[in-house]
């Protein structure tokens, strides 16, 4: 990537270093885009992909649905915890910023939305969500990339956040990517999952546990040396970075391993609370830094963020508390960072599938179907929920287990593209979301 950087890019890269995030950025240096298309030329769109199957019934708990509490048992959000939206729905208490926006009519929920995939497999469902195809393996480029193609690649820049461009932004148009070195905990799950695998393997289990301890100590020591936010140099200080980059010099490998997931259902220690506050601060910074890019002249108008960690088969309450707090902070950072441009921006946070309506035996939920998408933006029209609410009555559940989807995810995205971004309707149905005629365009969003 470095080899392709233009001088313009280096300038932006410096700018970001100054933001103190320890990030690397690569931007395809496109021509600065004059406001030829009037007001539409300022329109921006951010898609946040919540990977792992985000539980809609926790994001926007239908506390007013008579079946909710019984189905969810110990993982239900109670009516007094929920941040009230209407007579049926609330928001999870960690979504404070989203709730504040909702009260101004700048955030809405689509509580029973799903991609056309029904296999309940992460890989397949994420593929379908990101390619915009009607079925898995239908297409191998992302619909957001094809949107850039349709809108004119020289006019509209795309940017993805994360070490590697997510599928949604992959394709013919070279989109920029920006990778926060620290603060995004996309690798936090692995150590926990591996420790499970090593339970029957004392030799590896013991060695790995020791290794993690040492790692955590080294992290703590580094944090003490470099009070947060950790400067970019902290990464290069670590000897591992030197050889790790040898794996592939064009793609930065994930560099941080956060300590094993904190904030599980165990009571929160002061340390865990401090850790969560720090993560929230990093998340807000991620959002505001991305916003900083987007408000530059010729900056990206389309961006994608990928957030892992939503696959909550066990200990869901604590995990989602942490994840939603993180998501809320990213959104808050975007909102405040965009400033006046917030009114020109629509943000959609969506997931590949929802989770089972019933709580399972391990305080979690399993792969399901319908979930919640969050739609935010300063220019949204006021309105209630997007799509219908099928309710949680037993006969209403999809295959007697999941929230029944009442809205096709492609319909929501198509609505944002047409009404907000001004994308040509014909291209929408043929090139961006092929074979999606049955996914009706959601109207009246902006």
């Amino acid at each position, binding site marked *: 990537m470095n080899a392709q950087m233009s001088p313009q890019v280096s300038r932006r890269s410096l700018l970001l270093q100054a933001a103190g995030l320890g990030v690397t950025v690569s931007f395809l240096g496109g021509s600065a885009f004059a406001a030829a298309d009037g007001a539409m030329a300022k329109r921006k769109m951010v898609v946040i992909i919540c*990977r*792992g199957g985000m539980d809609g019934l926790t994001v926007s708990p239908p506390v007013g649905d008579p079946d909710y509490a019984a189905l969810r048992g110990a993982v239900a959000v109670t009516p007094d915890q929920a941040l009230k939206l209407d007579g049926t729905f609330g928001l999870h208490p960690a979504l404070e910023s989203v709730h504040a926006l909702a009260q101004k009519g700048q955030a809405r929920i689509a509580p029973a939305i799903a991609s056309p995939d029904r296999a309940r*497999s*992460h*890989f397949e469902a*994420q593929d379908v969500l990101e390619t915009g195809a009607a079925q898995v393996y239908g297409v191998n480029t992302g619909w957001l990339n094809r949107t850039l193609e349709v809108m004119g690649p020289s006019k509209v820049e795309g940017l993805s956040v994360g*070490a*590697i461009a997510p*599928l949604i932004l992959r394709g013919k148009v070279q989109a920029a990517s920006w990778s926060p070195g620290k603060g995004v905990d996309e*690798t936090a*799950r*692995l*150590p926990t*999952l*591996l420790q*499970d*695998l*090593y339970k*029957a*393997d004392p*030799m*590896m289990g013991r*060695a*790995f*546990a*020791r*290794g*993690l*301890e*040492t*790692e955590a100590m080294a992290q703590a020591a580094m944090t003490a040396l470099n009070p947060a936010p950790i400067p970019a140099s902290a990464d290069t200080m670590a000897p*591992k970075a*030197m*050889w*790790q980059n*040898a*794996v*592939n010099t064009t*793609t930065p*490998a*994930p560099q941080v*391993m956060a300590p094993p997931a904190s904030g599980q259902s165990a009571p929160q220690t002061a340390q865990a609370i401090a850790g969560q506050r720090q993560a929230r601060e990093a998340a807000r910074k991620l959002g505001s830094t991305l916003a900083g890019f987007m408000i530059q002249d010729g900056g990206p108008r389309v961006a994608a963020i990928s957030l*892992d*960690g*939503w*696959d909550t*088969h066990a200990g869901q309450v604590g995990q989602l508390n942490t994840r939603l707090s993180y998501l809320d902070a990213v959104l808050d950072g975007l909102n405040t960072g965009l400033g006046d441009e917030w009114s020109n921006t629509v943000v959609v946070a969506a997931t590949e599938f929802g989770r089972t309506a019933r709580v399972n035996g391990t305080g979690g939920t399993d792969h399901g179907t319908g979930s919640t998408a969050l739609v935010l933006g300063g220019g949204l029209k006021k309105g209630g929920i997007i799509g219908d609410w099928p309710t949680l009555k037993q006969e209403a559940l999809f295959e007697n287990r999941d929230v029944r989807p009442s809205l096709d995810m492609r319909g929501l995205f198509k609505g944002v593209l047409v009404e907000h971004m001004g994308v040509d309707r014909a291209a929408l149905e043929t090139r961006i979301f092929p074979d999606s005629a049955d996914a009706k365009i959601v109207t009246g969003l902006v």
Partner: protein
Amino acid sequence: MHDLAVSPHTARHVSTKLAAHFVSDTPPPALVARLQKTYLDSGGRLDEMARALIAAPEAWDPAPVKFKTPYEFAISTWRAVDAEPSGIGKLAPVLTGLGQKPFSPPSPKGWADEAQTWCAPDALIKRLRFSQGFAAVVADRLDPNLLAQTALGARLTPPVAKAVARAETRREAMALLLMSPEFQRR
């Protein structure tokens, strides 16, 4: 020299080393005894011993026993995705990072052959880093469940298959596979 070469102690020593390298850190005594006999019967012919090893049922136990050295781990990782390092320049820094700097064993005796040496806390963390980096580069184009089957075959255990299938992303799935106890052994 001749006296040394035909000594039963030499036969035992060489047999133990071979069995330990190819079969297990603590090789079955019966196997060592058979190899020792081959050595003495053939007048110390290593090719005969190799044949005896290949013929030994102990060498074909599907349960993986030997913890891979960094070299074996790295090469098998590339092989798992049907690829190879484009050159020593690509592989050498990886091996150095994983603790096995090419052509630089700690003593004339060569690299250690036991799990205790390689399955160290820091070494595992380094393998995890490598696995994540490797997965970040290649995993997005692969079917992780299929990869688990082709890479581990009969050695794919239900917990690993489940962990791979349940992973949130292809990258996570692949890193889990590479770090699984089964893939870390041969």
